[in-house]
């Protein structure tokens, strides 16, 4: 096909690349249109946040962790607060637990829709991209109306949540969900059956189940390979044990399966938000806060991209001696080398996007 390019050459993808939201740098060794070797250079978004976290007090760190990444900007402060609550044995009031899950699921819907929209953008399906993004705007409006920001919700605080959501707002949220649901079925149908879309995504970037286990993958990437891991079910937190939802899996392990997992999870999240609206108890928003004792604590939650893990060490002061977090993209990113093995150049950004890479999360 390409005699002129019979020999191997190196294609530098990134760090400024139009298809990638964030600076990521791949040295892709290419033979014709085939990728032979991928070398990932990272660290462009390394801002030294873990070092910063040990210079700020426990409350300031809520603001800091919220800005690790704006697509999972609710999961970070949530898990951070949970780590401290586990350490100090704080029990969050039930109403606050409901509201925490509400914020988390709203973010999950927006994050998943964003990822599948970018998929359409990468394969040049502009109309679909615009449609999905426009549908996502429903959720952006919910965020802005309820929390006052389109990205960083600032919903969580130590021992509870910062702001209440009243009945009027819940009315607005459920009306928005109704509009969202109307579009979701159509979008899922398009992604599941559009022949052009399928011909670009089915069988591309395959990650077998055993590799997913070997790399310790989590989230929609693992679930797309048939590995049913979901912290919400495996180690329930918040009020998830009281809510009913399905852990979505697909078996293809390719770009298409991962997109379908995300789309179907949007529906699960919608149902979760509905259950919250129906069962929200009255009560306090925060628990009384004791002095945080010296010690160490872990917490994990299911962020839109998978398991998020926080570890904190405190002495008796209000500044943590160590705060460490590990984001789902950390392992998913490493596993790109399996997915990109011998893929076509045309599919590189598509495969990268399919793990929903969060560079700013990963590099901190």
């Amino acid at each position: 096909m390409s005699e002129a390019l019979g020999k191997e050459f190196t294609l530098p993808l990134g760090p400024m690349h139009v298809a990638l939201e964030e600076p990521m740098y791949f040295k892709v060794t290419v033979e014709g249109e085939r990728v032979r070797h991928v070398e990932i250079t990272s660290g462009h978004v390394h801002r030294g946040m873990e070092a910063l976290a040990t210079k700020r007090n426990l409350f300031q760190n809520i603001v800091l962790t919220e800005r690790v990444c704006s697509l999972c900007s609710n999961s970070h402060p949530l898990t951070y607060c949970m780590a401290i609550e586990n350490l100090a044995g704080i029990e969050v009031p039930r109403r606050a637990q409901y509201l925490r899950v509400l914020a988390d699921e709203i973010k999950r819907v927006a994050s998943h829709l964003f990822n599948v929209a970018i998929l359409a953008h990468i394969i040049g399906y502009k109309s679909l991209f615009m449609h999905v993004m426009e549908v996502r705007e429903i959720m952006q409006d919910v965020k802005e109306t309820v929390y006052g920001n389109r990205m960083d919700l600032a919903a969580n605080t130590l021992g509870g949540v910062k702001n209440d959501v009243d009945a009027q707002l819940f009315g607005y949220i459920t009306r928005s969900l109704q509009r969202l649901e109307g579009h979701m079925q159509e979008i899922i149908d398009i992604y599941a059956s559009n022949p052009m879309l399928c011909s670009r995504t089915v069988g591309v970037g395959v990650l077998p189940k055993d590799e997913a286990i070997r790399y310790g993958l989590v989230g929609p990437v693992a679930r797309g390979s048939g590995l049913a891991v979901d912290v919400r079910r495996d180690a329930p937190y918040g009020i998830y044990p009281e809510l009913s939802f399905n852990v979505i899996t697909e078996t293809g392990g390719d770009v298409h399966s991962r997109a379908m997992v995300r789309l179907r999870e949007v529906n699960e999240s919608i149902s979760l938000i509905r259950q919250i609206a129906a069962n929200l108890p009255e009560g306090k928003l925060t628990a009384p806060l004791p002095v945080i004792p010296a010690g160490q604590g872990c917490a994990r939650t299911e962020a839109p991209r998978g398991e998020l893990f926080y570890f904190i060490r405190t002495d008796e002061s209000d500044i943590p001696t160590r705060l460490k977090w590990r984001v789902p993209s950390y392992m998913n990113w490493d596993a790109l080398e399996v997915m990109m093995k011998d893929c076509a150049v045309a599919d590189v950004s598509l495969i990268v996007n399919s793990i929903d890479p969060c560079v700013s999360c990963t590099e901190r």
Partner: protein
Amino acid sequence: MNLFSDIVVRSPWLYRINAGSCNGCDVELATTACIPRYDVERLGCRYCGSPRHADIVLITGPLTLRVRDKVLRVWQEIPEPKVTVAVGICPISGGVFRGGHSIEGPIDRYIPVDVNVPGCPPRPQSIMEGVLLAKKIWLDRLNGIAPGHKEERHVSLP
């Protein structure tokens, strides 16, 4: 001359540089600004893949050490006259990241910034307002009212 610049300024092509941002601003300006509700194309704007095609450059993020040289090189590749817009609080002051061991910002230590769009992240509306402001500065620069970068300040590539 004026008519000419009036026509020129109707075609601002945008280029986006992520200098280590948390991607909030990038989501808002690269994707949200394109969708029907905001549609930056109605201003004649277009996001281009090559810095050589750009007129207005949008920079996000606090400028980490590792991207610094790449950002500056890409910025220099953009042909004159150009207008620089710093989007979000990070390029202005470093935001919450200021003082981190790999933060090299604020960005105007290296690059002359024409428009600041503060916010964390700014709403798409304010980003578009920033683009409109940049268009105005570009027009002034084309008409010779405002000096370009060349005579005024040089980027110091270390």
